């Protein structure tokens, strides 16, 4: 156990020096093109905001089912099957057909080539399920159908969220999917997430619709409140143009009225529709509706064929900027709710770094003094190994660009405390061996060999705990699992290669000395 070949010594030295160099790149600036990896600081250390958003898919499902009722009715009308009493109740469509038609309707839904009910060969499942309840037929989304729907609304939502966050211009945001209905947004360095929260909380569904009193409107009418919550207007459900038709939106100052406005440009389809609607609707009120509330309802003065226009509505410059941003980035497919928020101010982050570093330094010092007092020269070997171990640990964290959190620092300190364990196990074992064995080399060899299973078992159990923590834990706690887990490997490496190398050199030079340890 004490023999090291030249090649092995070379390899250990090379590996150790390399990792120490990598670790020190966090402190000294190297040329970026040469080596640009760094340990990331977690949000709890550098300050920032963590937001977990959940997509509320209910309205999307409702809307899809609503559309589906029309599709079903029309589809079977062509086949001369009459659909009766079609209605939606808690995400199910119920309808009646004549008994003789029942089976053919069910067959249409269950046909793999059905153009009404898409079939996913990959999942061996249709989008929709049909069931004969006896009283009527029940149609709803299958499990796979729901998953597909959720995934697609998540894909759309994450795109919109990304655009909105990018527009605000925070540095290096991290936007990730979580499950099939959640989005995680990490915003480093953001002290006050209020604006982003407000922006993400809005669906930004914009429509232009005429105010009308015609009860016989083909599309139906609805009562909508104004933004101030006081007045109401009756608005047609017919959408002239919507947010999708916008090419651009910008906050501007209206030179005539001195008001802040949002000016917009429409795409070709939108411009054409807008032109036609304004030409036939001169004198009518055109309501600009955002998320079910009327921003303003100006009277159409003239045909607007240029494809651009403006929205006024008593904006401040900030609110106009935000509205323009929302319109540019597009509407969310479904409302988002912030279900978890953690924000740390940058000065608290700095305080945590300082506290963590002080604790690390003091913990380190205490352990080093203790080991020196207890083991003298072998204490020195352990201590040097501990220091190298710390650098190797930091080097590996750098290499993987791991995220260091406050609990992560605690994990490093704990590693320092527990790293001595393996050395202690070995040294104590050597002491025992020396009681019966006078030959130093043999005693040291025996100490290393006989302590191996205990060391391995002990480290594997801690590693198991760290692995579970890594997969089950979230955020900062994950950082703890990482440093604890990586720390186990670096500890074993430094004990079995570095400390053993030092020990072997020392022992071979003093092999005839008594009471070596």
């Amino acid at each position: 156990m004490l023999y090291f070949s030249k090649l092995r010594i070379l390899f250990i030295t090379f590996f150790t020096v390399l990792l120490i160099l990598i670790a020190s790149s966090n402190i000294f600036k190297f040329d970026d093109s040469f080596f640009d990896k760094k340990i990331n600081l977690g949000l709890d250390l550098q300050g920032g905001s963590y937001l977990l958003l959940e997509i509320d898919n209910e309205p999307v499902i409702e809307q899809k089912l609503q559309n589906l009722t029309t599709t079903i009715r029309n589809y079977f009308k062509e086949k001369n099957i009459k659909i009766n009493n079609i209605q939606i109740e808690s995400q199910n469509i119920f309808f009646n057909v004549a008994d003789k038609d029942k089976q053919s309707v069910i067959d249409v839904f269950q046909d793999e080539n059905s153009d009404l009910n898409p079939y996913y060969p990959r999942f061996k499942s249709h989008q929709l399920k049909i069931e004969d309840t006896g009283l009527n037929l029940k149609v709803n989304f299958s499990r796979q159908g729901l998953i597909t729907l959720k995934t697609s609304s998540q894909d759309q939502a994450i795109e919109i969220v990304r655009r909105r966050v990018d527009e605000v211009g925070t540095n290096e945001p991290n936007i990730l999917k979580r499950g099939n209905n959640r989005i995680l947004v990490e915003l480093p360095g953001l002290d006050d997430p209020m604006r982003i929260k407000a922006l993400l909380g809005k669906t930004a569904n914009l429509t232009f619709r005429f105010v009308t009193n015609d009860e016989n409107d083909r599309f139906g009418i609805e009562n909508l409140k104004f933004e101030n919550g006081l007045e109401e207007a009756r608005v047609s459900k017919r959408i002239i143009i919507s947010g999708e038709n916008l090419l651009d939106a910008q906050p501007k100052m209206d030179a005539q009225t001195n008001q802040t406005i949002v000016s917009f440009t429409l795409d070709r389809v939108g411009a054409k529709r807008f032109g036609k609607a304004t030409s036939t609707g001169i004198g009518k009120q055109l309501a600009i509706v955002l998320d079910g509330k009327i921003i303003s309802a100006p009277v159409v003065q003239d045909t607007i064929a240029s494809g651009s226009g403006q929205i006024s509505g008593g904006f401040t410059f900030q609110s106009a900027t935000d509205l323009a941003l929302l319109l540019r980035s597009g509407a969310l497919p479904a409302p988002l709710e912030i279900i978890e928020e953690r924000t740390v101010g940058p000065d608290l982050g700095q305080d945590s770094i300082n506290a963590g570093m002080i604790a690390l330094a003091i913990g380190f010092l205490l352990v080093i003094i203790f080991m020196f007092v207890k083991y003298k020269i072998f204490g020195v070997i352990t201590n040097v190994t501990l220091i190298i171990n710390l650098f190797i640990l930091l080097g590996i964290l750098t290499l993987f660009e791991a995220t260091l959190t406050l609990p992560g620092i605690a994990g490093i300190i704990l590693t320092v405390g527990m790293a001595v364990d393996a050395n202690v196990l070995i040294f104590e074992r050597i002491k025992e061996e020396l009681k019966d064995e006078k030959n130093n080399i043999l005693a040291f060899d025996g100490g290393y060999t006989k302590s191996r299973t205990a060391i391995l078992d002990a480290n594997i159990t801690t590693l198991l705990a760290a692995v579970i923590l890594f997969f089950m834990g979230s955020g900062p706690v994950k950082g703890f699992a990482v440093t604890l887990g990586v720390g186990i490997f670096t500890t074993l490496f430094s004990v079995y290669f570095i400390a053993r190398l030092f020990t072997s050199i020392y022992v071979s030079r003093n092999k005839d000395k008594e009471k070596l340890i």
Partner: protein
Amino acid sequence: MISFNKYYNHFNLLSSVLIVVSLLLLIFKGLNFGIDFKGGTLIELRSTDTKINVSSLRDKFNQMDLGDVSVKKFGNDTDFLVKFENKDNKKNIIEEIKKNLDNSFGNNYDFRRVENVGPKVSAELLKSGVIAISLSLALMLIYIWIRFEWQFSLGAILALFHDVIVTLGVFSLFSLEINLSIIAAVLTIVGYSMNDTVVIFDRVRENLRKYSDIKIFELTNISINETLSRTIITSATTLLALLAIYLFGGEILKGFSLAMILGVVFGTYSSIYIANTVLVRLRVSQKTVLREDDLK
């Protein structure tokens, strides 16, 4: 040699009492769950004005109709920790609070940390915390089962349960807050306690092979003594490191390091006085334990 085995019965009794008391505390008093597991909002606030103190803050927050509000000093005199239920999960609650505080205190305070955990997330976090701890106990059981014989597994697992339950019992007794980092601490305790037990068990097994004529009662005592200096040194250095975190690592790590300190103390104790006594009570001997190939 210290006769640890003289006190096996005494300490078994003590541990049984500790476990029963802890369980009673956990059942009847329960744990003080933080917002991670209960849901709600937490604000860490730093003031630059002496007018802002615990009672003035409590008055202000109580006026805002936020449900249960708790206001505590956090570390030094200028820092406060405010927690409330946020029952209706109001959306713009932080903005509203800021506005309200601005009115009374002006600009003399600063939110250093804001955490808001919805009821759905907190329920999930609690569930995954419980799963994580159960899973780690199960994995430890399996691991030690593979490495040792069932008598050893039982001893190690009983020691683990003891450590986890008694640590949680202390948290219940003093109403210390259970949050995500405490779960991390408990898992580390599980690892550490196991680590400690394994080292002694490893020696017990080795001695079982060596001495066929020594009864397990004596044999455990010999093994404990042989590994004692290692047990003391490792516990000592780990405790030194943890003490450094507790004293200098800032308020946020206080609960975590306290749980770890308790866990290391209980873990060291239980490796000696629970894990080993299980072997004694199961009358483990060379014959019952060692497989044939082990004896060759």
